[in-house]
C-alpha cells in the first residue's frame, strides 16, 4: 500500500468553496445510511401522531361542526394536520438529534475533522430533515383522502411546501439545540414556543374566530402560513398565498443563517 504518495489530483481541484456539493453530499449520505437503521421508528412517530390528531379532531369536532370556512371539517383538518406532521417530523428530530450528535455522540467532531465546515454541516442536516418532512408531511393528507378529502392536482405541490416548511423548522430546531446548555431545557421551548404555535396555526379551528391579539400572533407563526398554503394548494390558490410563501421563505432563511451562526459558536472553540 502506497499510503502517502498521494494524489495531487485530489488537491489540485483548487481551494474548496463554501457550501460545496461534495461536503453537503457527505453529510446527506451519512444521514441516509443511518436512516436505514431507524427509519421505522422515525416514520412511525412522525406520521402516527398527526394522524391521531386528524382522526380524533375529525370525528370529535366533525360531529359538532359540519363546515368550516366553507369546507367539510375533515377537509379542513385533513389539510391542516399536514403542517402538524411537518412540524413534528422536523423540529423535534432537529432539536434532539442535533444535541445528541454534537454533545453525546461527538459525531460532529468527526465530520468537522473532514473537509466539511459548520455551514455545510448545518445546511446538510436541515436539508435532510426537510426532505423527510416533505414525505412525512403528506401522510395526514393521504389518510384524509380515505376519510373523504377529494384528491386534487394541487396536492402534488404539498410535498414541496412541506419541504420548505420543514427546512425552516429543522433550522429552528438546530438553532435551539445550539443555544441550549442541556437537553432538559428543551421542554421550556416545547411548552412556551412550539405548543402555542402548534395550536394557534389554524390547524384545528380557523383563526378568524380568535381575538385580535391571537390573530396577530398567528400571522407571525410560520406554521400558520404553512397551513394556509397547504390548504390553498389543495382547494385553490389565492393572491394572499404569496404572502404565506414569502413568510415561509423568510422564516427558513433567517432560521438557517442563525442556526449556522450559533452552531459555529458551539462547535468551533
Amino acid at each position, binding site marked *: 500500500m502506497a499510503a502517502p504518495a498521494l494524489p495531487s489530483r485530489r*488537491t489540485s481541484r483548487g*481551494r474548496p468553496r463554501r457550501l460545496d456539493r461534495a461536503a453537503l453530499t457527505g453529510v446527506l449520505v451519512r444521514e441516509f445510511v443511518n436512516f436505514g*437503521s431507524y427509519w421505522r421508528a422515525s416514520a412511525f412517530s412522525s406520521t402516527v401522531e398527526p394522524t391521531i390528531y386528524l382522526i380524533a379532531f375529525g370525528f370529535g369536532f366533525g360531529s359538532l361542526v359540519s363546515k368550516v370556512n366553507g369546507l367539510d371539517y375533515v377537509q379542513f383538518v385533513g389539510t391542516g394536520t399536514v403542517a402538524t406532521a411537518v412540524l413534528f417530523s422536523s423540529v423535534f428530530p432537529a432539536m434532539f438529534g442535533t444535541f445528541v450528535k454534537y454533545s453525546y455522540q*461527538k459525531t460532529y467532531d*468527526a465530520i*468537522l475533522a473532514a473537509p*466539511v465546515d459548520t455551514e455545510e454541516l448545518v445546511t446538510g442536516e436541515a436539508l435532510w430533515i426537510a426532505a423527510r418532512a416533505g414525505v412525512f408531511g403528506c401522510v395526514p393528507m393521504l389518510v384524509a383522502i380515505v376519510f373523504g378529502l377529494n384528491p386534487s392536482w394541487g396536492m402534488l405541490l404539498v410535498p414541496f411546501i412541506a419541504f420548505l416548511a420543514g427546512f425552516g423548522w429543522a433550522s429552528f430546531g438546530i438553532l435551539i439545540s445550539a443555544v441550549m446548555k442541556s437537553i432538559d431545557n428543551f421542554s421550556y421551548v416545547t411548552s412556551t414556543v412550539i405548543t402555542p404555535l402548534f395550536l394557534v396555526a389554524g390547524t384545528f379551528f380557523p383563526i378568524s374566530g380568535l381575538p385580535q391579539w391571537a390573530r396577530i400572533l398567528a400571522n407571525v407563526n410560520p406554521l400558520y402560513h404553512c397551513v394556509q398554503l397547504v390548504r390553498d394548494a389543495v382547494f385553490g390558490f389565492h393572491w394572499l398565498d404569496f404572502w404565506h410563501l414569502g413568510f415561509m421563505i423568510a422564516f427558513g432563511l433567517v432560521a438557517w443563517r442563525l442556526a449556522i451562526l450559533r452552531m459555529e459558536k458551539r462547535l*468551533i472553540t
Partner: protein
Amino acid sequence: MPDPSPAIRLRGVVKRYGDVTAVDHLDLTVPDGTCVGLLGPNGAGKSTTIRMLTAQAIADEGEIEVLGHTLPEDSKAARAEMGVVPQLDNLDVTLTVEQNLLVFSYLYRIPRTERRAAIDRALDVANLRDRRGSRVDELSGGMRRRLLIARALVHQPRLVLLDEPTVGLDPQVRQELWALIDRLRTEGASILMSTHYIEEAERLADTVVVVANGQAVAVGRPSDLVAEHAGAEALEVYGPPARLREVEEVAQGHGWPTRRTGTSVTILRAEDLDGDAPEGERRVANLEDVFVLLTGEEIA
C-alpha cells in the same frame, strides 16, 4: 537545518479559554514523513493543539501551517489531506463497519470509481475485513479503535493526527495498535500523536515534544532527551516514607536531581554519584524520568 516544508508548523500559538491559557506560545514542527509524539500530562494542551490543527479550535495568537495550508483560512483544504483519530469513539454505532467507512469515503471526497477499493484497503489496514458486516456496537473496544483508525485512513491522507490512540485499552490491544501506527509511519505518512503513555511515545515517535501547561518544555529524539535531562542511569531507593524523605534531603544537599515514584525516590544521573550515595537499585534512565522531571514533580 529545518525541513523546508514540514507537515505541520506552529509558531507562537496561544489559545485561551476564558482565564485559562490552554496553549501558551507553543512552537511545534512535524517534519514531513516523521512521527512526532506530543507527550504531556492530562490538561497540558495536547487535545486543544490537535483541535487547532483541524480548525475546530481557533488560535488567539500565532501561526499554524498544515501541509502548506495556512490555518484557519485554508483549513478545509488541509483537512482534505489529513486523517484524524479522535480520543473519544464517535463511530456511528448502529451502522456496520463497512457503512462507517462508506460514509467517510464520501466525507473525504473519494471519487466514485475508487470508493470500493479505498474501503477494502482501509479494512485491510485495520485487519477488519472479516468484520465488515458487523454492527459497530457488536465490536470489541480494540476493534472499534482500529475502525476509528481505518476511518481516518480511508482517503490515504498525507498526515494523520492521533489523539491518545490507545487510551483506556488493555496492553495486548495497545501492542496491536502500535504495530498499526508503526506501519503507517514506515509507509511514509506524517504523524502527530498525542499521548500520556511514555512507552507509546518512546516506541513510536521519531521526535518527542514534552508539553506542560501549554508549552513545549523539551523537544528531541527520545534517547537524546533521556541523555540530556536524566543522564545515563537512575538509582531507585526504596523504603518507608520517612526513609524516602531522608534520602531526598541528602540528595538535595548534594544537588542531585531526584524524582518521587510512589514507593521510591529516584536519583537521576546516578552515573555521577560518589560514595555518599544511598543503597539502591541502579537502572537505565528512561523517558519517564524526563517526563516526570519536566512536567510535574516539584523537586528538581
